[in-house]
């Protein structure tokens, strides 16, 4: 059962993350088209060969998203899906594409997540869209969040993750310097990646702890930097992958777990869904934790990375901070973590942020990561996190 390793990532595209985007604002459909084109060029595959498509939500339509995107790109596909897993989208897209390929439904699948600013609707008196106010929380009538969270100010991500970190502090104890080290080591990695938004700006743990407290105990430098950007990747059958220009990166294992939308409803705030997702992924790949040469774990916050290291099984529950203290998490260290800088230091391009982690694993497994290349990188673990540790996915990727 499970994936047989007969699908591989054969092409990627990364738009350089930009804190101040000054390029043209174009609709997401156009952004997807360009990202798909770039990733197909990288894969050496013609658009006519594409027969599968995985999309996120797009700004231009609420429904019929895959058909709208397929039509815009001129694709006729046998497999199409819109994934709605927030920051777990990228990982979720890869395994869905791989599964569809292994089922024999399709041969070449485009997965793209655009996150550059879109144009404003020039028509006057457009209906007000309250998603601009409430973000990831739903204020629609009948929504549990609208009724039981939003009126109390329980909104957005910072507070939820901070409440998880406070609970961690109370249950397992806390070492704010070890938490800061996650951000520091990833910043060191960003300094080896010319495209990272914080390239050339190393930091120390003192810098992290001196940065403004946003929501106790999380400081500004423990929270992602939002940027404009976008990523895409191409998944193809192992057979098709044989004649692509780069080393194919095999999708060896996957897992996914969803529990709740809001942290208040989590059974245990400190036992996150990535645990089950990771066990599934490792089991499917027949891989051990010791075999992992690179971990690209979703890092919207330092606490997200910490809990993922624990729940994915790289260390025991409650031992994450000791693990961080005891290991060098940089690209030349003994446990390379988020070698592109992570979203903390490479930048988080909205919903595309998690795909920076998948694509970094691809660059590393291709041995094409330049100054930040991890030596002998053959097996990588990648995780995605949506909501507030509420929906998580995991991948094991291997050099083919």
């Amino acid at each position: 059962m499970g994936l047989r390793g007969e699908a591989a990532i054969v092409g990627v595209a990364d738009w350089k993350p930009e804190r101040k985007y000054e390029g043209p604002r174009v609709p997401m459909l156009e952004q997807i088209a360009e990202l798909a084109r770039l990733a197909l060029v990288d894969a050496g595959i013609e658009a006519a060969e594409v027969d599968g498509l995985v999309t996120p939500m797009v700004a231009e339509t609420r429904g019929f998203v895959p058909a709208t995107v397929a039509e815009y790109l001129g694709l006729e596909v046998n497999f199409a899906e819109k994934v709605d897993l927030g920051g777990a989208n990228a990982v979720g897209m890869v395994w869905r594409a791989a599964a569809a390929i292994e089922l024999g439904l399709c041969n070449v699948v485009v997965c793209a997540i655009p996150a550059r600013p879109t144009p404003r609707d020039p028509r006057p008196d457009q209906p007000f869209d309250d998603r601009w106010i409430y973000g990831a929380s739903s204020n629609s009538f009948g929504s549990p969040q609208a009724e039981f969270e939003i009126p109390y100010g329980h909104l957005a991500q910072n507070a939820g993750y901070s409440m998880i970190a406070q609970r961690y502090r109370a249950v397992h104890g806390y070492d704010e310097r070890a938490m800061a080290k996650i951000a520091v080591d990833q910043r060191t990695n960003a300094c080896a990646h010319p495209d990272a938004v914080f390239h050339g700006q190393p930091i120390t743990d003192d810098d992290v702890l001196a940065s403004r407290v946003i929501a106790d105990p999380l400081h500004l430098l423990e929270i992602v930097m939002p940027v404009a950007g976008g990523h895409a990747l191409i998944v193809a059958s192992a057979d098709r992958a044989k004649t692509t220009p780069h080393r194919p990166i095999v999708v060896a294992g996957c897992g996914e777990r969803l529990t709740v939308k809001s942290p208040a409803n989590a059974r245990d705030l400190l036992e996150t869904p990535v645990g089950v997702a990771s066990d599934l992924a490792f089991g499917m790949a027949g891989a051990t934790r010791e075999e992992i040469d690179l971990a690209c774990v979703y890092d919207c916050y330092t606490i997200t990375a910490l809990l993922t290291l624990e729940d994915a099984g790289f260390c025991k529950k409650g031992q994450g901070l000791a693990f961080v203290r005891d290991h060098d998490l940089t690209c030349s260290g003994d446990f390379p973590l988020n070698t592109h800088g992570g979203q903390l230091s490479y930048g988080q391009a909205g919903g595309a942020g998690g795909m920076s982690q998948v694509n970094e694993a691809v660059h590393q497994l291709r041995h094409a990561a330049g100054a930040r290349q991890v030596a002998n990188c053959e097996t990588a673990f990648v995780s995605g996190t949506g909501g507030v540790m509420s929906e998580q996915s995991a991948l094991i990727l291997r050099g083919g």
Partner: protein
Amino acid sequence: MSNAFEDMPKPLPVATETSAPFWKGLRAGEVRIQRCDACEAWVFYPRSHCPRCLANTLTWQTVSGRGVLHTYTIAEQPTNPLFADDVPQKLAIVELEEGVHVPSTLVDAPPEAIEIGMPLAPVFDPTEGGEGVLLRFRPATD
């Protein structure tokens, strides 16, 4: 994002037919939550079906509304511009005596006195200009 909605009133809860007894209870100064007739699980927020066993027979019961602080954060930057005047926001998840978790805020709680596990008592807080009541919590001193 512009500041166009800064003058908007804070969003208030709108009850559904299922949740109405909860809000009605708050207006009467009582905390009422549901319990599953089939598996006896306490349920919050109000639902049509039990989230433990999916039974569709839940019964409202009045409880003390007392509990302990499960976790919290003090937001120094507003979680949303609509809550800018509430900073620092003392956001909390409260574990009621029955075990359910309730998102809320703390009142009459100096930051240095806030501690996970501290006992809490309900505060029935009338909403500004509305006829509703929100359920907040204060340190239980009695």
